[in-house]
């Protein structure tokens, strides 16, 4: 198991390098000029110097190498500096955003808590809703509860977040006025009222995200429970005289959770992608909105770094899912 994990980790390095190269080459083709916003009164030679200062003068492969060094060597040093107060990265050039002229990672670190807070809560809520629904609708297959569950998850699949988000805004903030339509990230929770307000502003984005995740997870849970419910060991457990609760909730549930756990792990990175739209709808200034803003402002270092962070998440969680599968299911051995 350990050798498998190490082998996959080593294999992930070329994958990530290749992905970063693809992203870099894509961005290299960008027609936009980062100097377009500079006033026309600035003379041409000054503009040329500014361009060099942004690191645009060098050939392509040197710039790619520099980005790699900055991302994989200097940024970890900055992280260590921040944790232990050392001075490893003093005076070294970091990945600089063209928009704000400040290090990209600093902005990302500022934005990540908002995204994690909303997306993480949505994921937990979705798991808490989806698992019982999946279990019960498999146990009572083709009952009205199961039919309802199928229909609701089909709706969850089909309604895109930009519609469900706008719809809940129309109903709950415009018509009823219960919740604020804009997520206020500067809000500080220091009293009970502030906490209630935080809860109110989180309900809508969390529910919109959770609807989608619930739809997928409850389907998976149901299918996996159905696979197990007709197995011989279930009949054995019943024949032993175990109570129905123990049979379903201990014997069947444990075995059915194996694929579901891996699906939960696999879904985490895609949730960040889905959160881009939800963040846009509710004006949460997390990393999704940061990416959209960077794309519209032609801020290539920011786009490159953010897209790469998404790729790292996907590769990492794929690995975690594979390892989890091997740990949980003794029939699966990778060696």
């Amino acid at each position, binding site marked *: 198991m350990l050798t498998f994990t190490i082998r996959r980790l080593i294999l992930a390095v070329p*994958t990530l390098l290749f992905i970063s190269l693809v992203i870099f080459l894509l961005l290299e083709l960008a027609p936009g000029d980062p100097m377009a916003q500079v006033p026309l009164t600035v003379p041409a030679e000054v503009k040329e110097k500014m361009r060099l200062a942004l690191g645009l003068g060098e050939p392509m492969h040197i710039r790619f190498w520099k980005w790699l060094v900055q991302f994989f060597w200097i940024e970890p040093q900055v992280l260590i500096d921040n944790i232990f107060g050392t001075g490893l990265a003093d005076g070294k050039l970091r990945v600089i955003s063209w928009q704000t002229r400040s290090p990209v990672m600093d902005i990302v670190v500022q934005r990540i808590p908002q995204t994690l807070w909303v997306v993480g809560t949505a994921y937990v809520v979705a798991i808490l809703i989806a698992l019982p629904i999946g279990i019960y609708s498999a146990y009572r297959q083709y009952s009205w509860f199961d039919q309802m569950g199928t229909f609701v998850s089909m709706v969850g699949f089909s309604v895109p977040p930009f519609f469900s988000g706008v719809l809940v*805004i129309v109903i709950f903030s*415009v018509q009823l006025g219960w919740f604020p339509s804009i997520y206020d990230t500067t809000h500080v929770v220091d009293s009970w009222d502030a906490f209630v307000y935080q809860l109110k502003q989180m309900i809508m984005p969390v529910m919109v995200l959770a609807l989608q995740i619930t739809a997928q997870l409850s389907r998976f849970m149901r299918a996996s429970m159905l696979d197990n419910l007709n197995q011989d060991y279930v009949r054995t457990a019943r024949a032993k005289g175990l109570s129905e609760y123990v049979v379903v909730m201990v014997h069947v549930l444990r075995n059915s959770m194996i694929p579901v756990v891996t699906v939960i792990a696999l879904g985490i990175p895609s949730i960040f992608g889905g959160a881009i739209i939800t963040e846009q709808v509710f004006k949460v200034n997390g990393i999704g909105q940061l990416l959209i803003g960077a794309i519209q402002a032609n801020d290539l270092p920011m786009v490159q770094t953010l897209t790469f962070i998404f790729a790292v998440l*996907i590769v990492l969680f794929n690995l975690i899912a594979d390892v989890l599968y091997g740990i949980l299911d003794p029939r699966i051995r990778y060696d």
Partner: protein
Amino acid sequence: MTELSNPVPSKPPRSQWLDVWDQFKSHRGALMGGALFLFIILAVYLGPLFWELEATQIDIRARNQGPSWAHPFGTDQLGRDMLARMMAGGATSVSVGLTAMLLALFLGSFIGVMAGFFKKLDGPLMRLTDLFLALPLLPLLLVMMLLFREPLNAAFGPEQGIFILIVISIGVTSWMPTARIVRGDVLALKEREFVMAARSIGTTNSGLITRHILPNVLSPIMVSATLGIATAIITESSLSFLGLGFPPDFPTWGRLLFDATDYLQQHPERVFWPGMAISLTVLSVNYLGDGLRDALDPRIRGR
């Protein structure tokens, strides 16, 4: 010795597709989904023939009207008829969905068959699939929209250019699931006796693939086709909603929804129509795919 109960079959053999249809009919959701999808396709493509108002016709005196007999869905802030815009937008969205699905399907089946059939290609092609699966797709799509919009607009005109761009970018980022499923099926099929028999009488590789392999992997391809339409329509609408899709004067469902969010407080119904259209189309296609999956699976058929 037992007699054959019916030595000469009195009924002609039923074709496979009749069996499939029988199974499909028994799935009520799929039947309704199929009918709804057919209705939507007819409405968006043939509707403009019967509705003489143009989607781009501006009538500033009739702006922001509610539903009436002249304008069943009302009019927008420039007095353009919402029904006509919905039909024009639907035609674009559905065309994008269908074309992108066809492209993804072609790529996916081609790569899947190649990887499954030729052992040498299996490793590299599957690594390529894994690489594509590891790409963050929505951010990349956004980046592609940003980068290639200008050159393609210059080459093909603003509408044609963006159409080609969206179809190609959705196509090349959504073929991977099809390729994986097809490869798995081809790997299993390749070891079956009928393939060996065909090979023993000297069938060439291309003949084997087109005559024996492809017809047998048709059912997973058809199922992923229906699901592909759904994802393509959602992706196109998301791009339009984020402001990186079709130009503003060129309606699609996503774009209509995006434009309507500015008037959310005054005219919430304008958000409702395009959103409902997207959701209903995707819902009907999903049910259709669900039914097809059951109908094409011979193990379920006849139960």
